[in-house]
C-alpha cells in the first residue's frame, strides 16, 4: 500500500504524466498530497481522476447556478439587447437599434446615465475617504473602540432597507429635521427630494452614512501595518501628514483598491432606496432616476425587455471599463508588501 503522499506538483510521469501535468497547472492547490492509492486503484492517474470527480461533485450546485442563472441569462440578455421584445410576442431582431435610440433619441436615458455616474463617481470616493478617516481616528484610541465600531457599522447593515429609505425621505423633506436644522442656521433649502440639485447630494449622504463596512476593513488593515514603519518614519522626522501619505496609504493600498472596486460596482446597483424615496418614479425632474430604476421601468412596467437588456449591457460595459481602468492604474499605486499573499 502506498502511504507516502505523492505531491501533485512534481510530475510523476508514469504514462499518466499528461493528466497529472495539466491538473497541476490548473489547480492552484497543487501542493495537496493525493489520497493514498488504495489497492484497487491504479496509482496517480486514478487518484487524479477521483479528485476531479470529487471536485465537480462538490461544485455541482454552484456549476448549475453559474451556467443556469448567470452565464446562460447573460447570453440571453445579450441577444435580447439586439431585439424588440415584449415577452408576449417573439423577439424581433433590430440590430443596433436599441443602442442608437438610447444615445440619440432618449434624453431620459442620458439624464439617467448622468445622474448615476454623478452619484457613483462622487459618492464612492467620499464614502471611502470618510471610512478611512474614521478608521484612523478609531485606530488611535484604546478604549471604547468596540462600541464606536459597532455604532458606525450599523448603517451598513440597514442602509439599503426600505425602512431607512422611508426615514431618509422624512429627514430630508421640507420642514423635516434636516431642513429645520438648516433654517436655524439661516439656510433655506426646502425639501431635498424634489430639488433637482439636492436630490443627488441627499443620496450621496445616504451612501456615505454607510461608511461602516469599508471602515471595518480599513481598521483590520491598519492593525497589520507594522508599527516599526511609523517609528522609523518618526525618527526620520516625518510629520503626521507625511507618515499618512508615505506609510499608511502605501501599506493600505491593497485594501483601498479592494474597497474602491467593490464599492464602485455596488454603487451602480443603487435601486431600492431611490425607488422608495421617489415613490417609484425617479422623481419628476429625473434627479433620482438612477439607471437601475430606469431599466426596471422600461423592462417591467413598459415591457420593453429588449431595450432594458440593452441598457443592462451598457451598464456592464461601463462597469467593466471602470474596473479595467482601476486594475490598470493599480500597478502604479497598489503596493503588496513582500508579496507574501
Amino acid at each position: 500500500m502506498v502511504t507516502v503522499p505523492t505531491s501533485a506538483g512534481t510530475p510523476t510521469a508514469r504514462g499518466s504524466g499528461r493528466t497529472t501535468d495539466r491538473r497541476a497547472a490548473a489547480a492552484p492547490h497543487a501542493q495537496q498530497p493525493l489520497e493514498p492509492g488504495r489497492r484497487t486503484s491504479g496509482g496517480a492517474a486514478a487518484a487524479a481522476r477521483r479528485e476531479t470527480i470529487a471536485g465537480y461533485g462538490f461544485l455541482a450546485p454552484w456549476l448549475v447556478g453559474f451556467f443556469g442563472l448567470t452565464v446562460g441569462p447573460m447570453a440571453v440578455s445579450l441577444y435580447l439587447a439586439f431585439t424588440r421584445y415584449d415577452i408576449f410576442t417573439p423577439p424581433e431582431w433590430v440590430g443596433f437599434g436599441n443602442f442608437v435610440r438610447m444615445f440619440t433619441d432618449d434624453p431620459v436615458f442620458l439624464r439617467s446615465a448622468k445622474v448615476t455616474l454623478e452619484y457613483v463617481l462622487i459618492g464612492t470616493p467620499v464614502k471611502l475617504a470618510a471610512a478611512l478617516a474614521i478608521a484612523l481616528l478609531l485606530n488611535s484610541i484604546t478604549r471604547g473602540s468596540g462600541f464606536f465600531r459597532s455604532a458606525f457599522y450599523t448603517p451598513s447593515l440597514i442602509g439599503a432597507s426600505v425602512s431607512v429609505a422611508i426615514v431618509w425621505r422624512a429627514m430630508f423633506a421640507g420642514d423635516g429635521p434636516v431642513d429645520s436644522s438648516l433654517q436655524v442656521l439661516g439656510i433655506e433649502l426646502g425639501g431635498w427630494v424634489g430639488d433637482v440639485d439636492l436630490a443627488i447630494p441627499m443620496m450621496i449622504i445616504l451612501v456615505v452614512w454607510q461608511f461602516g463596512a469599508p471602515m471595518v476593513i480599513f481598521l483590520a488593515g491598519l492593525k497589520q501595518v507594522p508599527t516599526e514603519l511609523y517609528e522609523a518614519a518618526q525618527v526620520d522626522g516625518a510629520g503626521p501628514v507625511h507618515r499618512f501619505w508615505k506609510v499608511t496609504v502605501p501599506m493600505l493600498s491593497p485594501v483601498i483598491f479592494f474597497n474602491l472596486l467593490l464599492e464602485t460596482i455596488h454603487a451602480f446597483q443603487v435601486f431600492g432606496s431611490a425607488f422608495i424615496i421617489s415613490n417609484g418614479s425617479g422623481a419628476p425632474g429625473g434627479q433620482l432616476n438612477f439607471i437601475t430604476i430606469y431599466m426596471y421601468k422600461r423592462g417591467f412596467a413598459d415591457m420593453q425587455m429588449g431595450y432594458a437588456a440593452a441598457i443592462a449591457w451598457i451598464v456592464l460595459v461601463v462597469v467593466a471599463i471602470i474596473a479595467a481602468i482601476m486594475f490598470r492604474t493599480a500597478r502604479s499605486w497598489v503596493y503588496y508588501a513582500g508579496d507574501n499573499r
Partner: protein
Amino acid sequence: MTTVEHVQPGHETAEITAPDAGPVRRRGRRRGLASTIVWYLLLLVLAAVVLYPLVWLFFATLKPSSEFGRNSGLLPWAPTLDNYARVWDGIAGIPLWRYALNSLIVASLAVVGTLGSSALAGYAFARVAFKGSGIFFAAMIGTLLLPFHVIIIPQYIIFNQLDLLDTYVPLLIGKFLGTEAFFVFLMVQFIRNIPRELDEAARIDGAGHLRIFWSIIVPLLRPALVTGGIFSFIWTWNDFLGPLIYLTSPENYTLPIALRLYNDATSTSDYGATVAASLLSLIPVLLFFLIFQRMLIRGVATQGLKG
C-alpha cells in the same frame, strides 16, 4: 535626498534620544492627553450624528398622527402607542405579522440554501485539486464583480415561462445554487485557514472527501457558517428588487414590499403606521447585529484583507 537623510538620522538618533528623551516624551504625553479628549469628543459627536436617524425613527413611531407635519422636533408632544396598534391591524386587509412571517420563511430558507451550497463550493475550491478549478475560481470571483442588471431580465423571462412567478422559487433558487459569490469566497477563505494536517490524518485513516468535509471541515466551519448565515438572513430580509419583480399577490409579499404599500397608500393619511412598521421590520436585523456583532465584523474584515 531621501537616501542622505536615511543615513544621517541613523547616526544622530543614538546621541539625541539619550539627553532629549525626557522633554520629548513629556511633551508627547501632554499632547496625547489633549488629543485623546478631542478624539473622543469627535467620535461621540459622530456617533450621535450617525445614529440620529434611528433615534428619530424611534421617537417618530410614538408621535400621534396629528403631530406629523407640525412637530418637526425629535420628541413627541403626546407620546402614544396608537401607531403600533394600527400596524397590528395591517395593510390591504393583511396583518403585518403575515408579511413578517413571509419574510422569515424566505430569509430562513435563503440561509439554509446559501450556507449549504457555498460550503460545498468552498470545499471544492479550497481543498480538492481538480482540473478546471483555477478557471472556475476566477469565474466565481468574476461574478462577485458582475452587476446584476444583465441577468435579471432573462431570469424573469425564464421563471415566467416556468410559471413560477408569484412564488418564492425565483427568490430562493439562486441561494441553493451558490450564485452569491460573497458567501462562496467567505467559505474558501475560511477553509483555507483550517490546518491541512487534519485532512491528511483523516485521509490516512481512509476517509474520502465526503467524510472529511462532513466530519472535519463542517464542524470547524461553524464561525463562518454563523457569519455567513446572518449576512444571508439580513440581506434577504432587506431585499427589495427580487420580491418587487416576482411577487404579485399581497398575501405573498415580504416586509419590504408591504412597507412600500404602506408608504404609497397611507403616506398622507397614516404616516404613523408607516414609521412604526418601518421600525418593526428593522428589529430582527438590529437584534442579530447586537448579538453577533463581533463575528459579523470579523467576517467583513477578513473579506477585505485576503482579497
